[in-house]
């Protein structure tokens, strides 16, 4: 199985390649990709150099153009696709059907992957994308069990890629409106979930408050491990109860299920984290690379060292094992 690794900067790209990535995914410095954060991502020239670096080292570069085109501004996405193809991207990761159609028509030789943002989570949807746009691979949402993945794989003719480590989005990706509800901006249209422009951290006595727009979404006690300021990981008062309504601040780790994923027919394992620093990329990629070539019994201690780098300093297999409340 391939190891697909994130890079938000050229420095992180080099770290991912050097640490053992089979392919690195990245995006342009604009709203065409779902990690459109300040100071992050690649200029055209940086992507050209990154692709060349990958080629020299025999690794692939995937370019994520995985937001949905805004009516009237399609040219931004068309230009990004054109540039990525001309710069030599090994695959484009797309979510918008219109952009998929455009890429297939204009660049028939270009390899196309279906982004998790497309929310293709059943054989019918996936086969439609394969037939209509010749998609070679689909990235499945983090809402399926391993048994679900195996059932899907038996009925589709493309490769399956799944997230195995990093940020845990518990929603139907590409369709989640929580960030839009609180801030007017979403990963789907603007490339930002909980945009930094709407995030504030405030001290209240010994507590740290995280605020998103007009909402206080969490209060962390002294020394309590913190998480990202997303509504899906917020702590709320609901009736007489108080707690995490959707999911705790926690990261995904399914590396304990490698054999089951392989048996299910998964082709590629994806690490989330284009917004993370190069130190994170280097540590996670090298650890997962080592874990892939380690006996199952020895993986636990190896992966345990990544907990400290995880959201809330904890990890879960999430929906893959379906142990949610």
């Amino acid at each position, binding site marked *: 199985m391939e190891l697909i690794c994130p890079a*938000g*900067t*050229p*420095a*992180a790209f080099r770290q991912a390649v050097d640490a053992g990535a089979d392919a690195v995914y990245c995006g342009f410095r604009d709203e065409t990709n779902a990690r459109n*954060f*300040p*100071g*992050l991502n690649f200029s055209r020239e940086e992507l050209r150099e990154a692709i060349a670096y990958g080629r020299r080292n025999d690794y692939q570069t995937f370019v994520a153009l995985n937001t949905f085109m805004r009516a009237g501004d399609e040219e931004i996405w068309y230009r990004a696709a054109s540039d990525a193809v001309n710069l030599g991207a090994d695959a484009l990761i797309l979510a918008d059907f219109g952009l998929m159609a455009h890429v297939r028509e204009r660049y028939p030789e270009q390899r196309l992957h279906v982004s998790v943002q497309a929310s293709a989570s059943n054989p019918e949807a996936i086969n439609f994308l394969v037939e209509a746009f010749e998609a070679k691979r689909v990235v499945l949402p983090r809402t399926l069990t391993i048994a679900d993945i195996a059932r899907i794989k038996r009925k589709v003719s493309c490769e399956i890629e799944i997230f195995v480590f990093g940020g845990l989005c518990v929603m139907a990706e590409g369709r989640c409106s929580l960030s839009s509800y609180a801030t007017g901006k979403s990963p789907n249209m603007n490339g930002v979930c909980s*945009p*930094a*422009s709407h*995030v*504030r*951290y*405030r001290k209240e006595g010994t507590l*740290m408050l995280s605020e998103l727009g007009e909402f206080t979404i969490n209060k*962390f006690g*002294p*020394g*309590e*491990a*913190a*998480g*990202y300021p997303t509504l899906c990981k917020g702590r709320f008062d609901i009736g007489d109860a108080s707690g995490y309504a959707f999911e705790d*601040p926690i990261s995904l780790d399914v590396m304990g299920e490698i054999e089951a994923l392989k048996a299910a027919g998964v082709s590629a394992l994806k690490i989330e984290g284009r*917004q*993370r*620093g*190069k*130190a*994170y990329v280097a*540590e996670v990629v090298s650890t997962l690379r080592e874990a892939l070539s380690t006996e199952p019994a020895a993986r636990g201690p190896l992966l345990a060292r990544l907990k*400290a*780098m*995880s*959201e*809330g*300093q904890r990890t879960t297999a999430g929906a893959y094992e379906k142990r949610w409340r």
Partner: protein
Amino acid sequence: MRLTSLLAMPLGALPIIPVQHVARRLFQRLLEAHPDLFDRLGEYRGCRFSFTPTDLPLIFLVEPGGPTLSLKRKRAVVSADAGVEAPLVMLLALLEGRCDADALFFSRDLQVSGDMEAILALRNALDDCDIDLPRDLSQLGGPLAPLCAKFATEVRRRALKEMA
């Protein structure tokens, strides 16, 4: 004894002007070694950033638009668009991209305040620069540069070991 324990007392006692002079010289050298240091800041280049080592009596104020660096005592009233607080060694490790800012935030070792877009832009700008403080700053040592680099590398190794 921890590195910052050795620094804290003299930095608290010395007049701030000569300390600031030394800090500015180091800052200038870093900019010479990395002229693209603030390129990724974009529209946030005009912001004022405060860096507060929790284990030193000083606050470092950086204005990339200048670029300028100034020092303040912690008791002074400081105004900044965005601020970062952490132990000195962690701040230096972040400057070199040796640790992940999100991980330090999750563990509560790092605190951030103010404009989060500016903070993210700065974090990403620094993370993309291959800063190596012993290598970059030891040039100030002139003919003793190799010795300075060796000494500084050893200090860094010990400091990072203590941090881990």
